[in-house]
């Protein structure tokens, strides 16, 4: 068949298919008699023929373009994002954590062990606090959590609470995202940020204890610490996932390993972001209230920890599917 004949034969179909693509691109439904995938397949056949028979470059190019448009429409992911997010949070994420339980515990250890060691060191030798924290941070902390500080004894204005809410959200989630991105440097970046935070946490707690400000400090930290620290640990997990993909790609090429790992990693990261976002309102609106009895705050804090871990280890045990893919 010559090109002209070929064109005459199929031109109408191509035009129709193009219109179908246009409709789909505008997210409008196709009229129901149309068999889009069959039409698409036909265009593919036509393209293959045109290429093989050496029809003019103009024709081949326009068919290529047509096939590409059809390809985009046929293989579009039509799952709704909102539904997937909710299902991921209620089921997928806790499951993911359980699937990666050993990595989770490893990261938890990487976070809390150094923190504890630093805490002990500073507890034993209060002066070490200044070398861990630096003089500026240390004195900052001191003034922040001094029980006689007016902000501890008075409640903060609601609007500054809100301001801090914005700040926590922005800052903490950004840290999560960076921790994840740090995984690209063979995981070292993630580890580094996690360790840095761990040391700061340990040092700050040790220092506060030494100063005798423990109540003001721990009442502030305990409740939101549960989701926030866990979120940090999880984001480090996500970073290590891709870092590990680069170090030990296994049977895959490094490139493929990176791809596969980062797919898992980003799902962990979504979870981490969720946890951190959860922490922000608690930190801004609850932790900042200075007038509540420490006992109440400790109780609430403990409940938060229990809830977070219960969520991670119990949620989504039933149910069929994990919609996070």
């Amino acid at each position, binding site marked *: 068949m010559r090109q*002209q004949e070929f064109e005459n034969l199929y031109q109408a179909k191509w035009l129709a298919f193009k219109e179908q693509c246009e409709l789909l691109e505008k997210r409008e439904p196709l009229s129901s008699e149309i068999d889009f995938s069959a039409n698409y397949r036909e265009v593919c056949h036509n393209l293959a023929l045109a290429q093989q028979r050496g029809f*003019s470059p103009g024709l081949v190019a*326009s068919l290529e373009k047509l096939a590409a448009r059809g390809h985009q429409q046929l293989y579009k*992911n039509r799952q709704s*994002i909102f539904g997937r997010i909710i299902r991921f949070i209620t089921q997928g994420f806790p499951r993911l954590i359980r699937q990666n339980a050993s990595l989770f515990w490893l990261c938890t250890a990487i976070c809390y062990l150094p923190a504890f060691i630093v805490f002990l060191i500073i507890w034993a030798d209060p002066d070490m606090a200044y070398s861990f924290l630096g003089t500026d941070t240390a004195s900052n902390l001191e003034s922040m959590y001094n029980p006689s500080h007016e902000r501890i004894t008075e409640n903060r204005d609601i609007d500054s609470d809100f301001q801090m809410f914005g700040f926590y959200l922005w800052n903490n989630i950004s840290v999560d*995202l960076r921790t*994840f*991105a740090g995984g*690209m440097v063979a995981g070292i970046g993630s580890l580094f940020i996690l360790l840095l935070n761990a040391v700061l946490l340990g040092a700050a707690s040790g220092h506060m204890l030494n100063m005798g400000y423990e109540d003001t400090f721990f009442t502030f930290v305990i409740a939101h610490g549960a989701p926030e620290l866990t979120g940090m640990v999880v984001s480090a997990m996500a970073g290590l996932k891709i870092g590990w993909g680069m170090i030990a790609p296994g049977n895959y090429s490094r490139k493929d390993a990176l*791809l596969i790992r980062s797919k898992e990693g980003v799902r962990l990261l979504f979870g981490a972001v969720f946890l951190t976002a959860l922490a922000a309102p608690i930190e801004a609106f609850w932790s900042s209230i200075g007038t509540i009895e420490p006992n109440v705050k400790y109780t609430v804090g403990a409940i938060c920890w229990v809830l977070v871990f219960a969520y991670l280890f119990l949620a989504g045990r039933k149910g069929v599917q994990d919609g996070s893919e």
Partner: protein
Amino acid sequence: MLDNTSKVETPEGIELPLEVAGVVPRSMAYFIDFLIFLTIAYILALVMGFLGSFGEGLFLILYFIIFWLYPVIFEVFRNGQTPGKKAMGLKVVHQDGTPISLNASFVRNILLVADFLPFFYTAGFISMLFNKDFKRLGDLAAGTVVVYTEKENKEDPIPQLKPKAPALPLSLDEQRSILSLAERHQQLSEARQQELSALLPEQLFPAKEENQSRLKQLHAFANWLRGH
């Protein structure tokens, strides 16, 4: 042969060319996006400035959203195109040519931070310059490429002449070139077309019709090849 397209084989067994875009148009697109981002952030800051601490909090949240999610939102909901990419005629797709998913868009944009390392996107630039598909680190991890959106390149009509068969058998490539010459007859100067046809060997043209110019004869061949 070197080409700036990467071929993707679709499930249907055809090869779709993805014309991947390199560092220059992409940097320009990023630059435009960056300006838009700055403008939005500036306007937000102005508006929120009136609302005191609440405004600052809100600003930080919104800033957070546009800082991290500006490209993601556009890429997922606007067919793989941020405004900058749209201006430059680019879009992001998966490396198998399918439209970008939320997860992939998230990965590639979060990892902009990694591309930034150590400073000023050096890692990203180097990765883009040396990768075959001009991928930055984020693209490598997300399995995405930035491609040119195909422009409407309509088939140009060829001059209508009485079809005539060439006197020599022609390979596919040669046939295609003759067709292409006819398709481009409006873009090329007459003299140049004459000159090109003069390059062709004598044997190609049937001897008796010397009165017709070679170019005319070539167009007639093209008509024949097309099957008019």
